[in-house]
Structures are given as structure tokens and as C-alpha cells.
């Protein structure tokens, strides 16, 4: 085990899963996911993040992250419960506010709510009666409604509940949640607005190049964040919240990591082609892995790659590795989580929160 570093922690450590499991029963897939959180908490992870996908049969099997996190809340005590992301245009914003408020109360304030406009779920929109090409407009109006509900603004201006004088407000009241919102975007102008609003930015979509796409997004977010702070808004003195998601596949060596990833990459690549990203299908294995930001190999190689990542260290306040691939087993996922928590993240300056006070 790597010598644990001292000093302030450079980032919180999370993990993200897209909840794959081709051919398995949904119950087994969800039980494994609950188990993953339990183990991750024991390993010292600060948070676990789950992705919401709609109407998917084999890959991306969790349409209801908040229900699942309700179960996780009872099996854990400390680990943060995140979504990365909730597809906001397909949610009723007020019902979503209620669900996250109840989950936040059940979990004693551990919810981190990540929001996206559903670019990876466009085929599902029509089933919900919505136009995919209006998803950004729906995202904006829904986010306004969600945020104002979480802040405790009156939900029906002027109206009262059942003859009572009290205004209609979100219950249970969880105003802190409005400070724990995150947004994913691929638009620099929007990233800046995310910063001025004081929301965290989630980065790491596989096809976004860290240097040419992710770093400009992060810089725009930081500029917006600092502008708000300079104007006396936002969060003066607090680093801009940036969650950086990276595929991390440590193994005994690079070749074995690649062999393990091979069947998943083929599935992955077919999905990219289906979404029109045909240039990816012509890349060699190594180039392809690099193109989609996969850090793999011996833990030392992974650490080296992460140190060289242009949109990670110094920028991420939450480092969120993805260790599950399309056809990986629970045991392999847990083994990789352990390697991340005991070797890779400590080499980057992280250590479990429980050890911070012990120095």
C-alpha cells in the first residue's frame, strides 16, 4: 500500500457506475450496486454516483437512481449519494425535488444531485411525449423550478394550502440541497453560467477531449464562479466545484487491462457508431482507448496517466473514476475500487476522510 499523504486533501474520491449487466435479472444488478456502495464506503470513498438511463435493456439499466439510493442510504452511513446524471428534461421538477428531499432526509444530507439534459438518452424522449430537440429549453425551465423549490420559495404565488395561511412549500425542507447541485454540459457558455449560479460542473463525457473540450469548459466554469464571488454572490473562498469522471482500469499490466476491456470496447464502439460517431470505429485499440480517456494498466501507469491528464489535478474537487465496464463482474469492479482507494488515489494526494483528523 502506498504511503498515505498528509496535508489538505486535493479532491474527494468517488466512483461512477452506468449500471450495466447484460442478460442478468434487474434485481441481481441492483443488489450488486447496493453492495458496491457498501464496499466503497468501507474503502473510504467519499461518494458514489449513479447514472440514469431510460428504457435500456442491457447497458445503462437504472432509470430510477433515487429509489436505488434510498436503499443504499440504509446500508451506509457516510458515503455521499450522487447522480451523474439525472436526465432533468424527463423529470417533473417538483416531483424530483420531493424525491431528492426525502432521500436527503433519509440519508442525513448525503445527496449530490447531478443534472443533465439527456444527450445520451435522446431516443427515449418520444416515449415520454417530449421532443429531444427541445431538451435544453426543458432543462432550463425545469432547473429554475427545481432550484426554487429546493430553496424553499413558495410554489404557488399567492395561493394557500387548504385554507391555511401558510404558503405551499416543498416538504421536507432541505435548503442545503440547493448548494449541492451539479450540472453536466458540453457548451462553454453554459459552463460559465453553471459557475455563476454556484453549481458544480461535471466533466468527463468519454468523447470529450480533456485538453480541447473539458479544460475550456472547466475554465469557463471557474470564470463564472469567480465572477459571482467577486460580486458578493456564489461561494467566496470556496474552490469551484468540479467533478471529473475518468475510466480507470488498473490491472497487473497494460496488456491484461486491455484484454479485459476488449469485449466491452467492442460493445461501446458499436454504440458510438449508432450515435453517428463513426470516426471512432476506425481507430486502433490503443488509440481508441486514449480517445475515450481510459486510464488503464499497472497502477503506476494509471497514476502517471492521471497526473498528465490536462483536466484533472488542480481542477477536480471530486475525482470520480469509472471502474465498471459493459461486461465486468462485481468482483472485478470491487477489486478495481480497492486499487483506486489504496494505491491510485493516495498517489495523487488523496486519503480517506477518516484518516484526516488522525495526523
Amino acid at each position, binding site marked *: 500500500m502506498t504511503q498515505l499523504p498528509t496535508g489538505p486533501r486535493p479532491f474527494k474520491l468517488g466512483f461512477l457506475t452506468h449500471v450495466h449487466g447484460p442478460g442478468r435479472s*434487474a434485481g441481481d444488478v441492483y443488489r450488486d450496486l447496493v453492495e458496491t456502495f457498501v464496499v466503497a464506503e468501507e474503502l473510504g470513498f467519499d461518494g458514489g454516483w449513479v447514472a440514469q438511463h431510460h*428504457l435500456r435493456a442491457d447497458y445503462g439499466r437504472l432509470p430510477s437512481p433515487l*429509489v*436505488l439510493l*434510498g436503499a443504499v442510504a440504509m446500508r451506509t452511513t457516510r458515503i455521499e449519494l450522487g447522480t451523474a446524471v439525472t436526465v432533468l428534461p424527463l423529470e417533473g421538477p417538483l*416531483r424530483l425535488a420531493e424525491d431528492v428531499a426525502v432521500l436527503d432526509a433519509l440519508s442525513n444530507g448525503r445527496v449530490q444531485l447531478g443534472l443533465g439534459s439527456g444527450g445520451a438518452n435522446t431516443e427515449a424522449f418520444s416515449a415520454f411525449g417530449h421532443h429531444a430537440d427541445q431538451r435544453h429549453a426543458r432543462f432550463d425551465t425545469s432547473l429554475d423550478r427545481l432550484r426554487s423549490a429546493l430553496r424553499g420559495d413558495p410554489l404557488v404565488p399567492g395561493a394557500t394550502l387548504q385554507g391555511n395561511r401558510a404558503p*405551499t412549500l416543498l416538504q421536507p*425542507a432541505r435548503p442545503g440541497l440547493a448548494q449541492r447541485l451539479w450540472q453536466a454540459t458540453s457548451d462553454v457558455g453554459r459552463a460559465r453560467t453553471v459557475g455563476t449560479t454556484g453549481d458544480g460542473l461535471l466533466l468527463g463525457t468519454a468523447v470529450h477531449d480533456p485538453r480541447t473540450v473539458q479544460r475550456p469548459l472547466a475554465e469557463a466554469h471557474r470564470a463564472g464562479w469567480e465572477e459571482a464571488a467577486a460580486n458578493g454572490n456564489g461561494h467566496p473562498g470556496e474552490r469551484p466545484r468540479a467533478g471529473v469522471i475518468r475510466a480507470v482500469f488498473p490491472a497487473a499490466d497494460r496488456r491484461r487491462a486491455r484484454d479485459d476491456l476488449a469485449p466491452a470496447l467492442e460493445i461501446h464502439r458499436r454504440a458510438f457508431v449508432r450515435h453517428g460517431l463513426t470516426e471512432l470505429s476506425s481507430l486502433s485499440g490503443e488509440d481508441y482507448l486514449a480517445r475515450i480517456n481510459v486510464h488503464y494498466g499497472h497502477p503506476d501507469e494509471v497514476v502517471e496517466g492521471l497526473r498528465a491528464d490536462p483536466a484533472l489535478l488542480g481542477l477536480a474537487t471530486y475525482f470520480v473514476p469509472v471502474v465498471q465496464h459493459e461486461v465486468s463482474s462485481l468482483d472485478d469492479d470491487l477489486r478495481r475500487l480497492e486499487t483506486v482507494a489504496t494505491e491510485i488515489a493516495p498517489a495523487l494526494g488523496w486519503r480517506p476522510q477518516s484518516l484526516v483528523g488522525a495526523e
Partner: protein
Amino acid sequence: MSAHTQALQASANLSPAQPLPPLPRPFHLGFFTHVHGGQDATALYRGVVELFVAAEELGYDSGWVAQHHFHTEHGRLPSPLVLLAAAAERTRRIELGTAIVTLPFEDPLRLAEDVAVLDALIGGRLQLGLGSGAPIAAEFAAFGQDVAQRRVLFDEKVRVLEDALAGEPLGGPANGGTVDGRTGQGDGGLPLVLQPVTDGLSGRLWSSSTRPDEVGRAARAGHGLLLGVGPAGTVQQQLAAVHRQVWAEHWPRRPGPIAAVRGVFPGPDRDRVAAQLAADVALYLPHHVAAGWAPHANISTEELLGLMNVQYGRPDQIVASLSADPVFAPYGTHLIAAIQAESSSLDQALYHLEVLARDIAPALGWQPRTDGDQNASH
């Protein structure tokens, strides 16, 4: 009232289609809570989870929670499915129900996803009760809806929900999900269907209503009937008869589930329990006057307790009153006991749970379940 409804009511006045044997006889015992209490939300919800744990240990078959929106002290749970996922982690066997989900406020396909995930996660223990919500204008306004449309909204949404849970293709004309004539298509051009695929959940739906036409609709769709609101001897008995009749016509192979939802408040004597409950039940008096169930606003606490079908007093008195309950005795396959009044503490609710399971329900023919028992449908 439609001719169809009148025909249903006329037939309901005839002898029941499938009479249950008289009490004592086996039945399904559940508990129910509206989730009351002024404590902080974390303690409140953790307390509800404790009720499920205690109920499972006592052998209860099920526990049910109500969904209420924007309430600050009484009815504090807007997200029953999130809470039931938590309760399931602390229990192994007990069925987990909603009584009810206010369907007009839900996107029916998102609800279908939530219940499909929950049911898969908890091994098929979900019982999903549905209703159209109390006619409170501000609640509907908060969700951007007109309270006058609540029955229409329920009707539209319940069909989408039923179709989705049955695995029907999504986005077809039937569920209104078509956009510009396109239906949802997944990989390979196959029609999109709900994921995860559900296993028997369509057979675990329930409806709550005070209208015979809606109850007939529920029975045709295979929903069980939750009867809590309205005087048992008039309103509820008629609804139970309609449900039994319509169910027998459409589902002759199995009995229709009918749940009597009853406040059950054991204590040393009826007077003392009535005094304890007086302030709580008084909250419901305006509704009973408005609905025409109470003659005027000056009725006694005892009269109001009667109109609300509350079972209270010594255990033997509750056994006697449940044996004579005009819905539970002739129609009830399920007894779902509300064991928490507005002012009840968690300890009092736990006490009510225990007395019901130990001293009341067995005398009516119920037998506690053990961990080895299998879940039934409905």
C-alpha cells in the same frame, strides 16, 4: 350517474357474488401510516422504517405508506417509493405498499420506471395503491394542474401506467407518447418497452375511490380495492359490492382483493381512547360535512369516530366491532390498520401494532407470517 353505474349499483344490491366465510377466517393483515409527526424529517422517516421492522417481527403481511405533498406536520411523505426502498433494506419478507400514490401529479412512465426498479430491488414485495388525490386546489396548482381535472388525469395516467407495466410498446397512440407520429424505438428499431421488465407487478395494483364507476373500472383492470374513506355502512359497502360484482365478471378464477383500511386504536376503554383521538379526528370533520357524510358540524367525537370507521377501545371491543364491520366482515380479504393518528408518537404506533397482532387479529382468524412464508400476489 351513468346507466352503467346505475346497473352496477342495482346488481350490487343483490347478494354478493363470492361471499367470504364469516369471521373468524384467515385474512391478510397490514399496517398503514400517513407519516405524521413534528420531528425533523430524518428522525421521522427512520421511525417509519422502524415500524416496518417491528411489523415484520410481529408477522404482519404488509405495511403501507401514504403520499402527501407539501404538508408540514401531518402526512409528511411525498416520496413513498424512496422510503419503501429504505424499509426494504431492513426487512426480508413483509410486503411494502403505497396507499396511495397521488397519480395526477406523476408522470406515469417515470412512475412505472420507479416502481419497476423498486419491485426488482425488493424481490417483488411491492403493492402499488393508486388514487386521484384530495381535491386541494393549491396542490394541483403547484404541479401546474387544475384540480377539477383530477379524475380525468387519473384516468389517462393509469392507462399509461398499466400498459407500461404490462410491457406494451411505449410511445404508441394509446399512451399519448407519440411525437410527430414517431414512436419510441430502441436499438435495432425494436419498439421501446419499460425497463426493467416487471415480474407480476401488474397483478399487484390497487385503487382507492369513493365513486362506483371508478371502482368498477379498477375491478375490470384487475386492481384490488382500498376502502378507507367514507362511512363503511353506506359509502364503502356499496363500493365493495360493485368491486366484487365486476371482478367476478372479469376475473372469475380468483377472488377480488378488497382491503378495509381502518384506524385501530386499542386502549384501556373506549372513552379514554376517544378523548385521546378527539383533536385528531376533528381535523377531518369539515371534509365529512362537505361530503354529506356528517349531518352537521356539531356531531360528537364518538359519532365522528363512527363515520371514520375507527376501531377503538379494549382489544375484545375491537374484535367485536371488526366482526361487525359492514365491509371487513363480508368483503374484506385484507385488513389494513392505520395505527398512527396525527398526535400518535412512534412508541404509541408501535404499541398499537403489537396489540393488534397479538390480541386482536388472531381472534378474527389471522395467523402471523413467518420468514419462511412465500409472498402471495395481491
